[in-house]
């Protein structure tokens, strides 16, 4: 009459939809928490999810219930010293006695409802309805490309894959092996025949016998097939994951004297955002940090953000270095190249045209996307105007001007706003 059923193998994520609904409902609050979190993180520290708090009153489901006031009778257990008619003051706060039951119910309402977003949910919220433009080279996210590679030979396959040399070599070996005993016997028989013929003793019958035998053996030798289905060898190919989902991100930053800490901080956030976005789309991301003033050097992340230089600014030095590194280490048929450049707009006057030229000729053709932000309060200078021209020529070149930390997120959205399917 009773059944015992093992349900453990049934799906365990029945609540996934409800959880999604919950996240969906509080998207605004969650988004706010997420963008707050971004500010506090290092560029590569996006492994963890994020703790998100929502005020309890926002997520409360209202029902009619009694408020304070009126007459309440409460029964409590554990009487120690009271007798009927005792009177005493109301305990302050939710100390548990008296009207405590009600009071603490209200008291709980002050807390925030905190929960963890998983890494994935965190990213989803962050990159909601964004997509990188011109993602032409490789499919994004988790779609692993397979490459077929040779893996020796097999005994069966399609005719198109027959490996002729291997098959014939096999056939030869087989023929040799199969013919060997017969050949041996032929030799022996021939020798005997020769002996018989030489001895010339009443050999009629025996000679005939040998001849017949030889004939039979030669026939047998001839019937060994030249090639047998058994000999066929096919080229074997197996699918291997192709490490295509890789990207390199160039961070270019002006570290000349005019870039103060605040500006660098803004630039850093911009790089973080780009990194986060790439992280979502590519399995492997290399970061190249190039800082420049009058000359450019490749540095590690720490030095990139934390050392101060002074002096003038030659932007093209950084672009040239990037070009070299690209050519040397990141061929564009294997790598998706992204670049983000931050500057305060200063440049050596005659250098700006030069920059545009390098971008046009060498850098942009190799890039998936190139983003330039100018962090400045003042009027744009010649670099900005040169870049405007570049922007007209290249769809995957984007530029923005930002003024304060608050502008970064909108700028980021603007830069990577979902675009119609690229036609390139």
């Amino acid at each position, binding site marked *: 009459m*009773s059944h015992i059923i093992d349900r453990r193998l049934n799906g*365990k994520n029945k609540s996934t939809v409800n959880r999604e609904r*919950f996240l969906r409902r509080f998207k605004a609050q969650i988004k706010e928490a997420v963008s707050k979190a971004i500010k506090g993180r290092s560029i590569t520290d996006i492994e963890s999810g994020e703790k998100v708090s929502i005020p309890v009153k926002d997520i409360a489901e209202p029902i009619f219930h009694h408020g304070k006031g009126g007459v309440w009778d409460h029964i409590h257990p*554990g009487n120690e010293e009271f007798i009927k008619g005792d009177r005493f003051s109301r305990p302050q706060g939710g100390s548990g006695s008296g009207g405590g039951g009600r009071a603490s119910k209200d008291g709980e309402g002050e807390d925030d409802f905190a929960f963890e977003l998983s890494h994935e949910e965190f990213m989803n919220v962050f990159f909601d309805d964004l997509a990188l433009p011109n993602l032409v080279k490789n499919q994004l996210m988790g779609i692993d490309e397979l490459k077929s590679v040779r893996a020796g030979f097999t005994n069966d396959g399609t005719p198109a894959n027959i490996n002729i040399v291997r098959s014939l070599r096999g056939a030869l070996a087989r023929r040799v092996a199969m013919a060997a005993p017969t050949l041996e016997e032929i030799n022996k028989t021939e020798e005997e025949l020769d002996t018989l013929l030489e001895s010339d003793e009443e050999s009629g019958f025996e000679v005939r016998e040998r001849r017949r035998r030889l004939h039979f053996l030669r026939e047998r030798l001839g019937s060994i097939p030249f090639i047998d289905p058994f000999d066929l060898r096919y080229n074997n190919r197996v699918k291997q994951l192709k490490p295509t989902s890789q990207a390199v991100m160039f961070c270019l930053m002006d570290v000349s004297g005019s870039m103060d800490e605040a500006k660098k901080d803004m630039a850093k956030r911009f790089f973080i955002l780009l990194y986060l976005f790439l992280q979502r789309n590519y399995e492997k991301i290399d970061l190249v940090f190039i800082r420049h003033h009058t000359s450019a050097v490749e540095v590690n992340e720490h030095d990139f953000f934390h050392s101060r230089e002074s002096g003038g600014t030659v932007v093209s030095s950084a672009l040239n270095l990037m070009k070299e590194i690209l050519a040397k280490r990141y061929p564009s048929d294997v790598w998706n190249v992204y670049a983000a450049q931050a500057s305060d707009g200063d440049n050596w006057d005659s250098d700006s045209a030069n920059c545009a030229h390098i971008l046009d000729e060498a850098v942009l053709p190799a890039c998936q996307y190139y983003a330039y932000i100018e962090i400045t309060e003042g009027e744009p200078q010649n670099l900005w105007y040169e870049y405007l021209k570049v922007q007209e020529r290249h769809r995957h070149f984007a530029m923005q001007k930002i003024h304060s930390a608050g502008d970064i997120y909108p700028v980021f959205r603007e830069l990577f706003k979902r675009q119609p399917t690229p036609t390139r």
Partner: protein
Amino acid sequence: MTPISTGSEWTFELIDEYERAIREIAVDEFKLDVYPIQLEVISAEQMMDAYSSVGMPVNYHHWSFGKHFVATEKSYKRGHMGLAYEIVINSNPCIAYLMEENSMTMQALVTAHAAYGHNSFFKGNYLFKAWTDASAIIDYLVFAKKYLSQCEERYGIDAVEELLDSCHALMNYGVDRYKRPQKLSMAKEQARQSEREHYLQQQVNDLWRTIPKRDKGDGGQAALRFPPEPQENLLYFIEKSAPFLEPWQREVVRIVRKVAQYFYPQRQTQVMNEGWATFWHYTILNRLYEKKLVTDGFMMEFLQSHTNVVYQPPVNAQWYRGINPYALGFSMYQDIRRVCEEPTDEDRAWFPDIAGTPWRDALEFAMRNFKDESFISQYLSPKLIRDFRFFAIRDDDQDDKLEVEAIHDEEGYREIRQLLAEQYNLGSREPNIQVWSVNVRGDRSLTLRHSMHNRRPLEPESAEEVLRHVARLWGFDVRLESVDDQGHVRQTFSCATGHRELQLS
């Protein structure tokens, strides 16, 4: 007899053996009447899933269940809370979940508690019999889930979500409290009939057919009153009378109402139901021990979790959170048994009709025919009041002091019993709010009336908010009046819809 098992690991064979041993005791020996049983072994994650959809194996989707899930998951992962040992579903067959993490002892405990204790309560208690249809609930929820996801496809997730939000806000007012249901066959007949009636009503809707004719004076207005009598079931009233709801929206309101009605008996029998299940797991497992089917180790483990469950912290304890329904219910059934088996003079005076009678019959009668409120007022004995050291405190907002009204002494027993029963009266725990009237001739606003009890006011913030939900469903302005015992309006809330102004000639 040798013990069924000695280790703490469970296997399906062992669960089966224990189940049969428990059945022998529960059904053959103690004559518990149960639905067929389906024990389902699930993982902790699945338990959390079940938790967050109010224990049902299927349910429609809503963000609030997700919220519940997130909260459960959070406290479970941090180790703040062990998951409940058991979830049991009032269905036929009765589904009880066994969590795979449990030890063999716990599986046996849950089987006795849920699959026999709760199960027999669901089958026997009059409220469950009258209000819930155990054999149909799962199918109904499957239907509801499907229907709602179709609605989502057709009308968008947001529209459905909004509607559900509003309905959930009124869920506690989506039940028939006082109307006694008819006998089943009659009820069906009645349903068919009233369906026809409602169909007619919608065709010739008294309310909305009315083209307002301005009579001279107010004479006509007083005569026409809608609804003719106050209505306790807000969701029912909305389902049937809200002017702007689309048919699918009415169906959704109905679904929420049905689910609310299904859970209504559970809310009224917490002490009785948990007490009953606890009493039976205690009795059954002890019987297993007497029959030497379980080991000392088994009993130690069982008793440890049993005592945790029935612990009642005293009022001055830091972790006091009110009366523990398990403790109260368990003690009361134990006490009824004691009164039957070893009555004292006091018991004979208080419970002349059960003292000295067969305990099993007395217990069965108590389980079948009461709800928490009446159960306590019938069976709470002076001995229990002394054991629990109950005392009553009056908290009157017109008095700057609290007053001890009664304690566990001769003159206090009856008062404490009555007050404790009142404490479990859903009717006074929840504000009594009914549909009062609709201004049929004028702006078609809906007026709800809160009948105040002991001058208890509504909590204003949530009242305002719920009222917005009512207005969303109703489509016109909504008012809520709190009326005191003398009929004076004490508090009013209102929610203007702003839109959908009716063009009156």
